[in-house]
């Protein structure tokens, strides 16, 4: 990495590291209890609710809520610049198209 000659004080794209500060641990622990709570709720719903499409929708919704908190709080996406968040999160919308397309095709794949 030392091959990039640069004068002191000049921006160096390879070795640049932004200054970071601690935001404390309070939010992290709150996120942990939240994730644990939702997982326990998953467990309870599995045994109290009869299997249905609605129950599956609830489980997927809970999964997305957990994903939001993991990415937002644990991976610090909330503290990143909005441009980066959009660059990473918007392409994941393509997955929704994949899900809808392939689940629809799944019926067509059926040989029964």
């Amino acid at each position, binding site marked *: 990495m030392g091959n990039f000659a640069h004068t002191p004080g000049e921006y160096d794209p*390879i070795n640049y590291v932004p200054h970071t500060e601690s935001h404390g641990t309070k939010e992290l622990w709150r996120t942990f209890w939240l*994730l644990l709570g939702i997982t326990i709720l998953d467990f309870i719903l599995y045994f109290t609710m009869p299997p249905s499409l609605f129950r599956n929708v609830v489980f997927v919704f809970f999964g997305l809520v957990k994903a939001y908190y*993991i990415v937002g709080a*644990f*991976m610090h996406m909330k503290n990143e610049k909005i441009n980066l968040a959009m660059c990473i999160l918007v392409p994941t919308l393509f997955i929704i198209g994949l899900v809808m397309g392939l689940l629809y095709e799944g019926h067509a794949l059926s*040989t029964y």
Partner: protein
Amino acid sequence: MANQTSATFENQAMWAGGRSPFNLSYGKLMMWIFLLSDAFTFSSLLVGYGAIRFSYSGASIAWPDPAAIFNHFPFMHGYFLPLLFVSVMTFILIFSSVTMVLAVEAGHRNSKKEVSKYMFYTIIGGFAFLGCQAWEWTQFIHDQGRLDSNFFGITQQGYEHLKDVKFGDHFHWNEGDRTWGPVPFASLFFIVTGFHGFHVFSGVVLNILVWINSMRGVYERRGHYEMVEKVGLYWHFVDLVWVFVFTFYYLI
């Protein structure tokens, strides 16, 4: 209008060079982009699972109910405890995510001692999860789940038997409860959880390297603990994937 002008100017300056547009180091940006591509890989696997499962709707021997298969718990042999063990595994992974993020937070304060301590806890969590997964695989293989065959085609008699079993009851398969069932159920179980487990294993290896480096004071001399953040991103991603494996494999 003054606001608009200054905003435009700021945007131009952002991409005009001489600064990091995302205010991010090269390595961390690359980690984010790698994780995005990895998210596509995992979603292909999970969506493929969904498509194949849907293709078995209407089959004479239905896609098995996960609760009928993954109902074991260590030291509780012979009891019907579906979902309990995977919930424990989920808890282990979430908790190791917390210790990882505490290591990152300690790194922001340049606390060598705390980073090393929390990295060590995270490694323990990773090994605990891998051990649980090995146990889960052993049980599944013991019950005749194979990469190329699946003895979890549950018959009418089997479902009648399962109907009477409650959480915590004694449970053993009777003769004729099971027959050869949809093969992709077993193969996809090994492929998806195996691919995830391999990610966990790689994460543990990276965590060990960062732990050793932090103890040796490499990051202290460097002046920042960014490597902990980068490995942390990977570790949280592994946790994130497990959330969806848990949802699609065990809950639905």
